[in-house]
Every structure is written in C-alpha cells, then in structure tokens.
C-alpha cells in the first residue's frame, strides 16, 4: 500500500517535471504568459509530489514497513529513531529520492522568488531546472525504484551501514552536501538562460549570484563536515585523504568559488560574462560527475554504493548535459561579449582574474588526479590509484598562491592607482604577516610551506580585519545624521575570507606539525606522546541497544597530573561481521589528543593503539562556521537597497542598481 502510493507519487513528480519542462521551453521561445503561469504551477506540483514521496518513505522507515523495497534493504527494528530517519539517505535509492526532494525545495523557492521583470529569461531557467528534475524522477521510476514492493516482507532488516550510524554528524553532513550539490542546478539554469537570452544584465547577474552563493555555502559546510565526520569516525587520525569522493565535492566548490569572484568583474567592469557563465555550467557538470563517481561504484569508498544501472544512467545524463552545454556555449557565447574593459596593472581587478586562473588550475589538477585511474582502468584494465603525494605536491603551492591573493587582492583598490597609494595599502598588513609567522616560529613550525602559509594568513587576516573595522570606525567618528552606508556584501566577503584564513592555518599546521605513534600495550602499561603520558587502564565489554562494544579506558596525564580518561572503542553491530572502531578525541583550542583502537582483546586485557597529537584541527571546523556565518550575512534580505559606496565609476555602473 505504502509502496504503491510512493510509486504513484514518483510518477506524478515525473509527469509534473516533464510537462513543466516542455511548457517552460515552449513559453520561453514564444514569450507566452499563460505558459509561464503553467510552468510555475507545474514546478510547485513537482515539489509537492516529491516531498510527499519523501514523507512516505520516512514514515515507512519509522514504522518500519518492510514491504517497501528500500526499507527492506536498510531498515531495522533495532535502530534508534534518528538512525531510521537518516537511513533515507544512507543508501543509493533513498539518496536519489532525497536528491529529488532537495531539488523540489530549490525549485519551489526559486520559482517563488521570481517575478515579472524576469520574464525574459526565467522560463528558460525553469525549463532547465524541470528537465533536471525529470531526469531524477525518471531514475526513481526506472532503475532506482525505492518503492518497489517486496512480495514476502522480512520480519526485520539489516539497518544502514554501520559506519554511517556510528556518529551523529552523519545526520548532518549528507543534507548539507545535497543542499550544495543539488542547489547548483538553479544557477546552472540561470546561466543557460543568460545564453539563450543573449544577455547577462544586472538583474539576472544578481539572481545568479545569490542562487550560486546559497549552494556554495552549503557545499562549504558539507565539505568541512565530511572531513569532521571522517576525523571523528574513521579513526585514522586525519580529515582529508584526497579520496575520489572528497575530490568530487571539492571540484564544483572550486569552480563555483571562481564564478562568485568573476561575477564581481562582470558587475563592475562588464567583462568576463561568458567566462562566468561557463564556470557556473562547469560547476553543475562537475556535480553530476561527482554524483556519477559516488553513486555508481566506480570508486571504492565509504560513499560508493553497489553497482547498478543507475551509474550508466547518470553517465548518460552527464554526457547529454555536457554536449548540450558545449553546443549552447559555442552557439551563444558571442552574445555575451564584454561591454567594458579590464585595465592592465596591479589592481584588485587583475588579482581577481589571477585568482580565477589559480582556482581553475587547482580544479584541473584535482580532476586529472581523480579521473586518471578510471581512464587507465577502462583502457588498459589496470587497477591503480593516484597517491596522496601527487595531490600534496601539486595543490599545496596552488593553495598558498590563493592565500597570497586573498591577502593582496582586498588590500588593493579597484582599478589602477598611484604608486604611493599601492605601497601604503600593501605595506601595512606586513605587520600581521610577520606577527603570525613569528608566533609560528616560536611554536616550533619549521616547515617552509607552513611558515609561508602563516605569513600570508597573517597578512590576509589583517587586511580583512581592517576592511571590517573601517565602516565601524567611520560610524563612530561621524554624526548619526550622516551615516556612511555599509555594503553588507563587503562585510560578508571579508568575514568569509577571515574564516577561510582560519581554515588555511588549521590545515597547514595540523598536516605538518602533528605527532603520531602506534603502540601495543598490556593493562597498566604507559607510554608518552607529545607532552602527554597515556596509561592503559583496562578494557570492558559493554552492551547497548543496537550494538555491543569493547571500550578501552586510557588514562591521560600531563606533568604527573591526571587530566582525563579517554574511551576509544570497537563497536560490534549485529548486521556486520567486522567491528567498527570509534576513536576518542580530546580537544582544546590548540590541539587534539586522538586515540584510535587498532585491536583490543578484553580477555587478555591487551590493546593496539594509534595515538596522535593533532595541532589546530579544531580551527578548521571553527573557520568553516565563520565562513558560513559570513555567507549568511550576504544572503540576509536587504532592509533597503544600498548603493555600494566603494565602487569606482565605470561602464558597468549604470547596470548595477544596488549592492545586495
């Protein structure tokens, strides 16, 4: 019954999306108002149908109703309620269903925010959105079939992958990732619309930028949360391994970041229109590539589910979307010719351009390293992967280059300026730079890349703080009648930069200044790591509702003083033959003590322990939160249209009515 109703809802969503896409394209070509009204209705209908299907599935998972195919594969009577809900995205079919839901939310929101002045291009965008929605509904109706009926329902199911029910972050990371990944469909549609309309004016640019910033923010949070989850759950002591699946989430983030920055040049100089549109399109294609890589089993990792016809279907969609985009770009990109000009010389403009190039080379480097093994496997049937040293060697200099630009760019004025102005702007932040590098040296940093990172992190931080302080000090010094208007976007940008600088520092320090030890201990034995002394105090068997566990007790002492008892553990799930280790982490502002069990024997009271002291890992999570808050500031609805008073006059200025 539930299964049949679910299938019916999916068919309904497919119908609404397909009809909506056709009507949208037809009304776009003919500029037909009735068509556009129907497009909107069908978009809402799609969103409602797919949301209802998701609600059905959650209900079935909570009961649990094992006559529904997906529930039979991932449901279980013994899991807690939150795990049951999270199971919605813990496996392939459910994750595509959830994908459809997220797309429905975006579609409804973008449709609801649209208004009459956008009639020139919105039908094109809606057509693209609804086509994408139709594809994913087709996947759900055809190969995925989460609502398949199980003729003889089992009395209980296996529950989701043990690794995925091992930590609460698993409830948070995937929704953010989907909100990031799926959301790029919206700017993609707008970019395609700009090509069809042959215009990227101020209104469309603003809509495009906001709808790019929303998924970008989610993606930023999702990438860091993924690392956080890996760190807290997988037990190898790190947060990033250049795993193909991690790379898949990073690739669209890099191109979207580039697009957000090049959009500034579109706005101010009326240049790089085609380039920005291409970056947005590339971001979308990379999300589909990422979906293919994570959802088809071509890579082996915690994210990759089993082999199925879904992989080839996504690959076909990727090919179709790529060909469509390339043809459209080749046909229409001349319509987006620059109206302004980029002046040579050292200015914020030119550094923005340079940053764009670095981001693209970065993305290209990661892309090559990620897909190379796939190509070798397909052509020569050899199994290999690209080792971590490739990424570290190639990407670290690019990252430092980006950090340098992050400092220099905002320090410089827009457009060309005189030498004394330049020197004044560029010299001051050296104070922060020397300070940061000095603190690093004093704390024992000797790695050249780390010191370089700290130096330019200090530089960029001072620039961002100065820019954030300036409007505040202006407000304080002037009478309230003549309040200078603060561009909220500018505040947001500098807060995001500040957060990113914190992330840079965390990554540089944690990856070069950690200590790691593997030891085997019997009960009562001690060893030293960093300035800690660790003692194995014993191991106990613990019974919990949905699992058994062996919990080791490790006493932590520093300078003879006992600090805490940490409890790394091995969890045994009924559905899984092998145990899943859970590390224990003790954090303070400057470092984490990280303990992970390699093996443990409660009868002989012995254990193998992997102990690490990871400095400043927490700064990565903190920096991510600052970045998200900053982006949130930019997305808050403006109280009133604010003219951006920092803008120099230019050909494009007339096109920029407000500063939101």
């Amino acid at each position: 019954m539930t299964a049949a109703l679910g299938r019916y809802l999916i068919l309904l969503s497919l119908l609404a999306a397909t009809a909506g896409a056709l009507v949208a394209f037809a009304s776009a070509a003919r500029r037909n108002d009735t068509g556009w009204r129907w497009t909107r209705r069908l978009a809402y209908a799609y969103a409602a149908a797919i949301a209802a299907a998701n609600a059905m599935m959650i209900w079935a998972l909570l009961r649990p109703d094992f006559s529904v195919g997906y529930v039979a594969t991932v449901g279980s009577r013994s899991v807690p309620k939150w795990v049951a809900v999270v199971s919605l995205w813990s496996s392939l079919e459910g994750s595509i269903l959830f994908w459809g839901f997220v797309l429905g939310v975006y579609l409804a929101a973008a449709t609801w925010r649209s208004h009459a002045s956008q009639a020139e291009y919105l039908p094109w965008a809606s057509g693209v959105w609804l086509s994408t929605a139709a594809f994913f509904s087709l996947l759900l109706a055809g190969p995925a079939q989460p609502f398949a009926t199980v003729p003889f329902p089992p009395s209980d199911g296996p529950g989701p992958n043990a690794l995925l029910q091992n930590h609460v972050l698993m409830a948070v990371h995937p929704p953010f990732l989907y909100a990031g990944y799926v959301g790029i469909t919206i700017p993609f549609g707008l970019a395609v619309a700009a090509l069809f309309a042959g215009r990227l004016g101020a209104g469309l640019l603003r809509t495009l930028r906001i709808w790019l910033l929303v998924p970008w923010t989610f993606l930023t949070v999702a990438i860091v949360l993924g690392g956080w989850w890996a760190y807290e759950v997988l037990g190898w002591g790190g947060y990033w391994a250049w795993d193909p699946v991690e790379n898949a989430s990073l690739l669209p983030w890099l191109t979207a970041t580039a697009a957000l920055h090049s959009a500034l040049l579109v706005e101010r100089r009326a240049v790089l229109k085609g380039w920005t549109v291409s970056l947005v399109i590339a971001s979308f294609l990379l999300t589909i590539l990422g979906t293919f890589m994570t959802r088809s089993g071509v890579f082996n990792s915690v994210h990759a589910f089993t082999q199925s016809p879904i992989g080839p279907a996504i690959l076909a969609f990727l090919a179709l979307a790529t060909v469509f985009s390339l043809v459209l770009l080749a046909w229409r990109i001349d319509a987006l010719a620059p109206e302004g000009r980029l002046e040579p010389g050292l200015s914020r403009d030119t550094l923005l351009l340079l940053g764009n190039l670095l981001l693209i080379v970065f993305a290209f480097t990661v892309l090559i390293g990620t897909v190379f093994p796939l190509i070798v496997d397909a052509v020569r049937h050899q199994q290999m992967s690209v080792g971590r040293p490739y990424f570290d060697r190639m990407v670290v200099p690019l990252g430092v280059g980006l950090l340098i630009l992050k400092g220099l760019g905002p320090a410089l004025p827009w457009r060309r300026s005189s030498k004394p102005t330049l020197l004044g702007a560029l010299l001051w932040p050296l104070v922060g730079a020397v300070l940061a590098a000095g603190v690093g040296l004093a704390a024992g940093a000797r790695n050249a890349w780390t010191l370089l990172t700290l130096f330019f992190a200090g530089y960029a931080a001072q620039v961002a703080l100065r820019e954030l302080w300036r409007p505040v000090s202006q407000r304080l010094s002037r009478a309230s009648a003549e309040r200078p208007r603060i561009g909220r976007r500018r505040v947001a940008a500098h807060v995001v930069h500040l957060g990113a600088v914190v992330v840079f520092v965390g990554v540089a320090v944690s990856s070069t200044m950690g200590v790691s030890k593997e030891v085997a201990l019997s009960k009562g034995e001690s060893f030293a790591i960093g300035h800690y002394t660790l003692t194995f105090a014993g191991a106990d068997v613990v019974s919990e509702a949905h699992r058994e566990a062996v919990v080791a007790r490790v006493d932590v002492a520093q300078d003879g003083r006992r600090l805490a008892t940490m409890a790394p553990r091995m969890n045994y799930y009924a559905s899984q033959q092998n145990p899943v280790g859970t590390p224990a982490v003790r954090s303070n502002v400057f470092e984490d003590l990280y303990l992970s069990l390699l093996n443990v024997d409660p009868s002989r009271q012995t254990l193998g322990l992997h102990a690490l002291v990871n400095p400043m890992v927490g700064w990565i999570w903190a920096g991510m939160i600052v970045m998200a808050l900053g982006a949130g500031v930019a997305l808050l609805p403006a109280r009133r249209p604010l003219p951006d008073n920092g803008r120099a006059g230019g050909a494009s200025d007339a096109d920029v009515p407000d500063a939101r």
Partner: protein
Amino acid sequence: MSGTREDSVALTVSRRRRNRWLALGAVAVALAAVLAFLLAGLGENLVYYWGPTELRAAGDRAIGATIRLGGQVVAGSVRRGGSVSGIEFDVADRKGGQVHVKASGVPPQMFREGIGVVVEGTMTRAGYFDGQRLMVSHGSEYRTPREGEDVDMRQLIKSTQGLAGKKEP
C-alpha cells in the same frame, strides 16, 4: 550602449578576431604545459593494485614503487615480531604467486591466517615486501576465492578496512 561607440566597436571587432587566434594559441600552449606537468607528477605517484603474481611479473619495476598488494594470508605463515609491533607473513593468490611480507605497525583487529588482506608498501631488493600499512578484508562482503579463481582485486580493495590515512572502510 551609446551610438557614439559604434565605430570603435566595429574596429575592435576586427582587431578582436586577430587577437582571439593569438589568445587561443597561448591558452592551448599553457594548457599543454600544465597538462604535461601534471602527468609527470602523476607518473611518479601512482599506486598499483597488484597480486603476488603481478608483483613478481613486474620485476624490478616493483622495487621502490608504491604498491597495494592484495591476496590471502597463507595459513601457518604468520610470525609476530620480537617487539610487540611488527609482523611477518606470506601473501598468496590462486595463480601460484606468493610473496613474503614484513609489515611494521600494529595489525588490525580482524587480522588472522587465511583472511584476505591488502598491504600497502613496496618491494625490496632482498626479495620481501616491505609493508607500511595493513588492511583486512571486510568479512561481510568479501568471500574467499574458490579453487582456480583469482582474487578479484577490485572486490578485495573495496572490502578492506583499517588502512591508516585512507578512508576505505
């Protein structure tokens, strides 16, 4: 756009055509250079997934290269080192290949004779495999190969866990 700019627009269009070819050429050269640089970096940092037979066949190429050696731990071959960490064992596949492995570090929980393993490390001139990391196959997914059947490397790697520095469960 204002009408006074039309002449200059026409002029820039022809100039732009010429410049476009120059720019395209420059971009192509730059792209080729970046690609060559990246591929050179790739070549030095590949990790090969081999069984004992492929490892033997590779000969000197295996010495110093990063290899993930997959196979089964031969029964009766496991010797724990004198110190508490460190372990020695033989890894075999069904094609008759066999390699002696000396692994450092503490073995993972599920390590035992007869189980499928993946060892990351490199071949030494002395003829044994120097393992840096040891992963054990995931019992629920990996099945022992039948007689005459080879270890399915993809399946084995997919089903391994416990590799420090790598996310695979």
